[in-house]
């Protein structure tokens, strides 16, 4: 079958061969003065130094992924500590500004929905959990995954270090607030810290675990929905207390913290295999 016939056959225009043949004949006249053998040799003279420089820069056939794997090391305590020190740069002015804005937003929400002052921090902490979640995926958000991928730490190590830094900051933030509230309303400090820590870890765990299935936006949305339910339907009460009403508050908190940590552990492990 000729080339022309084959083309018409491919686009189901076989019946138009006669009428299109004239077009093909004209197309055949459209020839180009091609470069000579000497031109090709000249081109090669330009290319060879470039190829040599390229091979020097990327020796052998080592692929990007292999280089990435080769650069990784197993988890050792000093390296994680070093990583935490490096990741502590996350707590910058912008982060402090956003947390302050959240604080104000929570005050407004608590007042608007008439939530008791003791439940104020319980309402705030899931938002901090979602903020922590955002930092877990900052490489994807800022499109620097490639840079992150070639660093010597695995994604799980990075995720763990970020969780430790940001949750640590959140805890400090909440503890300070607790002291302020305690001095004004005489509420037991330990109880309040536990009340804050539980929804914080739980919302972070929910966000991370659901993001593995539904992506970053999906994870944020799921944790956000849980938070909205907590504010609107439960009037700021902790969601586990609603699910397990017969248990004591302390037991409720312990179950909540354990569940949140389990979700975070599961998510970090899954991230390591991605």
């Amino acid at each position, binding site marked *: 079958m000729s*080339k022309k016939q084959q*083309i018409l056959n*491919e*686009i*189901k*225009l076989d019946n138009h061969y006669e*009428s*299109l043949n*004239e*077009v*093909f004949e*004209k*197309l055949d*006249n*459209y020839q*180009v*003065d*091609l*470069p000579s*053998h000497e*031109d*090709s040799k000249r*081109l*090669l003279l*330009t*290319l*060879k130094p*470039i*190829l*040599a420089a*390229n*091979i020097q820069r*990327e020796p*052998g*056939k080592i*692929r990007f992924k292999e280089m990435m794997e080769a650069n990784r090391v197993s988890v050792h305590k000093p390296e994680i500590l070093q990583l935490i020190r490096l990741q502590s740069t996350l707590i910058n002015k912008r982060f402090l500004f956003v947390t302050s804005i959240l604080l104000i937003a929570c005050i407004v929400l608590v007042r608007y929905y008439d939530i008791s002052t003791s439940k104020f921090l319980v309402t705030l902490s899931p938002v901090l959990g979602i903020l922590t979640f955002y930092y877990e995926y900052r490489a994807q958000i800022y499109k620097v995954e490639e840079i992150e991928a070639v660093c010597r730490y695995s994604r799980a190590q990075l995720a763990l270090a970020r969780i430790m830094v940001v949750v640590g900051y959140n805890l400090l933030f909440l503890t300070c607030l607790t002291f302020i509230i305690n001095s004004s309303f005489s509420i037991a400090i330990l109880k309040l810290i536990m009340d804050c820590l539980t929804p914080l870890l739980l919302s972070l765990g929910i966000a991370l675990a659901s993001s593995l299935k539904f992506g970053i936006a999906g994870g944020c949305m799921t944790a956000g929905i849980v938070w909205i339910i907590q504010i609107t339907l439960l009037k700021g009460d902790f969601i586990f207390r609603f699910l397990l009403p017969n248990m004591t508050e302390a037991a409720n908190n312990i179950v909540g913290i354990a569940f949140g940590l389990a979700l975070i552990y599961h998510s970090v492990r899954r991230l390591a295999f991605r």
Partner: protein
Amino acid sequence: MISDEELASQLQSGREDALDQLVFRYHKPIYAYIFRLSGDHHTTNDLVQDIFIKLCRGINSYRQELPFRPWLYRIAANTYKDYKKAAYTRKVLPGYKDMVTQITNTATPEDAFIKDFEKARLIQAVNNLNDIYRETLLLRYYQELKLEEIAIVLSVPVGTVKSRLSSALSQLKQTLKDEDFVLRPNLQGS
């Protein structure tokens, strides 16, 4: 004969003889493809050199499980698009000077003149096609790429390649049939 994919693999290991073979195999086809797009020998020379430099620099990103030919044509097509975008920004639109002046200045027995005039008319008709139709037609008819390969080059489904090819031929047929369609002396890129 060693396949393109094997040569590409050898090139990844830094073998210069593989580069020799690939250049001798593809210099002319890529030149023809770019010339039919740009219409200017000087521009074509620059772009072809640029394409092969990109081949050398990016060879490590080539995966052997993919066919080499569409990969190279994809570099060529993207290089031309980048050039055209930059030319548009500088307001120096690519022209078809070489083609047209070469053809219309033919000194001239009458039949040669008519023949050259017909050719110039065809070139203008091809260049008047929308870019997406023109590059599909050039890749299939002149470069003789398979539909599947063109789909890889242009990152579109095979069905889209078929419909573009069909539209390109229909439009070309219509334009060439049109008696009022005449050669304009100052052609500009589409």
